[in-house]
């Protein structure tokens, strides 16, 4: 394609995203609550054969993670059997003693998971994070595909690309499966509201999956422990809640009392089995970056299988030898706090000033338990459109995994791209962009004559 024609299509995609109001909010952009979603029009292609193995690995991983969460809130076999130290679990910020003794439907706690996958320069695929709390981005995956279809319709005729649009349907089915006792449960998505960075996605998913879009103030918990929403007919019961609010804010009676976003009493209702909450409260414990290091052991322990997908090699600073190693090699490593998401509060050694490195040296020495370190992966790159030329930019991949009575993995997922040359930070909250991701079946070439 000629450069001019290509530039034209880039412009079309930008106008399209803006007009359709596909936006993302950056908290620090004061006064401007919407930013157009930065979209790169060059799709990233992954061969189907390769993807099938990844998909299998993701299913394996989520099965083990869910069994782990179920275990630690009940018998705690993994601790009793000496696979994991007790304090790693019980002192994790994501551990909620209020969840002890609970078994959600199907024994599944993390119903919606958005794992981050990266590939290093040698081509090895790693799971970087599991993201079991309230992962976002799936709406952008769907919108990216829609936009690519409008901008490059001819390519879909030439290639065999797996469709992604079934996600909302699978989401609705999965949520319904959380109330096997009801034939037609009332299902809702609980959003923190319009000022949340992912509000667009909340509204989009509610609309696409037929969920009622709720804010905390729309709900109350009755004396009978059921959750009710305030409607023009009066109060109506809600049976399943897909919450996009962190544990901390979900119930001011139990967690943060200053939360204006949550619903007082909702934990009581959940514990009484009168409402299903996805993801289940307390499941964030498995997002802890120290616990992450044990996932391969969990897979072996619960499933008696070898992990299909690799973990990034991780040093646990709580161990003295690991800490020594980390302190000696600090400028080469990536250091992450155990319990943050979105790329906040971390050190990327090779890209940081000496001052910043020293700052982390102090943090690690004072509070080693709260940190892990990993080698700086030189992430794989993908051709990306930058100021009218095409240049390599680092990418990762976030597939979405739904677990209810069954497990569904999106074909591909959201490819996030670091728009700044050399940058490894792909987080949308820190200015990263995204690409449409194609799982291409190369064994089935479609002829142009078709």
């Amino acid at each position: 394609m000629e450069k001019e024609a290509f530039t034209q299509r880039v412009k079309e995609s930008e106008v399209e995203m803006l007009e359709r109001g596909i936006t993302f909010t950056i908290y620090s952009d004061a006064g401007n609550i919407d930013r157009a979603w930065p979209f790169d029009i060059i799709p990233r292609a992954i061969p189907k054969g390769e993807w099938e193995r990844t998909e299998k690995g993701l299913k394996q991983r989520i099965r083990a993670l869910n069994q782990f969460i179920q275990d630690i809130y009940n018998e705690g076999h993994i601790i009793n059997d000496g696979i994991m130290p007790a304090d790693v679990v019980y002192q994790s910020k994501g551990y909620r003693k209020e969840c002890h003794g609970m078994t959600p439907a199907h024994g599944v706690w993390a119903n919606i998971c958005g794992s981050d996958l990266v590939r290093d320069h040698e081509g090895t695929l790693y799971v970087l994070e599991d993201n079991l709390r309230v992962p976002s981005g799936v709406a952008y995956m769907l919108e990216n595909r829609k936009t690519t279809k409008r901008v490059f319709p001819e390519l879909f005729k030439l290639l065999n690309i797996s469709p992604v649009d079934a996600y909302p349907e699978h989401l609705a089915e999965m949520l319904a499966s959380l109330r096997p006792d009801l034939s037609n449960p009332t299902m809702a998505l609980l959003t923190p509201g319009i000022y949340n960075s992912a509000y667009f996605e909340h509204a989009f998913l509610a609309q696409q999956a037929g969920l009622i879009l709720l804010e905390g103030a729309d709900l109350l918990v009755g004396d009978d422990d059921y959750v009710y929403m305030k409607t023009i007919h009066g109060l109506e019961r809600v049976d399943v809640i897909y919450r996009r609010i962190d544990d901390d804010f979900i119930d001011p009676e139990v967690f943060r009392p200053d939360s204006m976003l949550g619903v007082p009493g909702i934990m009581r209702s959940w514990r009484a089995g009168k409402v299903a909450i996805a993801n289940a409260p307390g499941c964030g414990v498995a997002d802890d970056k120290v616990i992450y290091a044990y996932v391969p052991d969990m897979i072996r322990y619960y499933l008696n299988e070898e992990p299909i997908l690799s973990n990034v090699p991780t040093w646990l600073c709580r161990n003295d030898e690991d800490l020594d190693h980390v302190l000696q090699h600090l400028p080469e490593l990536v250091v992450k706090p155990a319990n943050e998401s979105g790329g906040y509060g971390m050190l990327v050694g090779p890209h940081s000033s000496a001052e910043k490195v020293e700052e982390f040296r102090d943090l690690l020495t004072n509070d080693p338990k709260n940190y892990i370190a990993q080698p700086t992966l030189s992430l794989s790159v993908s051709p990306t459109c930058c100021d009218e030329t095409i240049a390599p930019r680092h990418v990762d991949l976030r597939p979405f995994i739904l677990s209810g009575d069954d497990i569904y993995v999106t074909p591909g997922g959201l490819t996030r791209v670091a728009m700044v040359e050399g940058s490894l930070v792909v987080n949308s909250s820190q200015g990263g962009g995204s690409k449409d991701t194609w799982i291409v079946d190369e064994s089935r070439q479609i002829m142009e004559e078709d």
Partner: protein
Amino acid sequence: MLSRVAERVYWLARYLERVENTARLINVHTALLMDLPEHMEVNWFTLVTIFDAEQIYYTKHPRENEYDIMHFLLSDPSYGGSLINNLSAVRENARTSLDVLPEEVWEQVNELHLLVKSELSSIGNRRRRQKLLLTVMESCQCIWGMIANHMSRNYAYDFLQAGKHLERADMTSRILELATLLMSDNRSDALRQHEGILWATLLRVLNAQQMYIQAHNSSLKGEKVLAFLIQDNAFPRSLSFSVKSIGNYLEYLPGDKRVLELQGEILARLKAYSAEKNPPETIRLMMDELQISLNRLNTSITSNWFYPDYSAS
């Protein structure tokens, strides 16, 4: 349906109707002033009086000129009734009701908002301003078309329609207050000379000229125009049509029927209008009362469906 969502779609409709009416009013008024001599009772500032915004206007602008008045009514971010603020309110309400609205409605609202924002700097230019106002009207019509053609006749639809008709009745009544000016005994000779144009303009502001002519041939008699705009049963922007429509949609909604009683009373008063019983000098008072009643109706809708007392249920 959630009470909060009901409230948001109701206000979405009110603001959307307000945007369209504001655009049409300014567009038609501009055309009218091109035909009139200067220094008449009808001038640029008439627009500010229609919006009851004289006081706020004077706190910002010492003089009454086209430029300041247009800026104030269209693009002033600090005046709540400006077109851009109404349009932003449409957008905010649409953004928080995405799950009940047809997808295209949000896209259209968003597009219109982007367009108006980018064109606001050019409203000093009369030609470009008129063009922008036409686009705004078309876009509003397009949104209502999408709602009519793509939306199930559900509660959200009922609240949208009730909001639209209530807002329309309010706006029509404000414009009819002008009629008092046109019919007053001590009106100027200049005004008397241009009476025909002025009545025609009044009809055009409400998009009523063509339908009026069909119903009454071309005779532009003040009394006939008033009667047409107050109580014509067939014309969808007449006051009684709007108030009757509010009832048509509220009727489907669950709960208290007292709201309907109030709406019925307002309708009955409009039906009782006649040129003999209501001489021109009483029109202003009648419209003031109507606006107060519509306000009460709004309050009643709000407490009935948006903020009911849940402890009672």
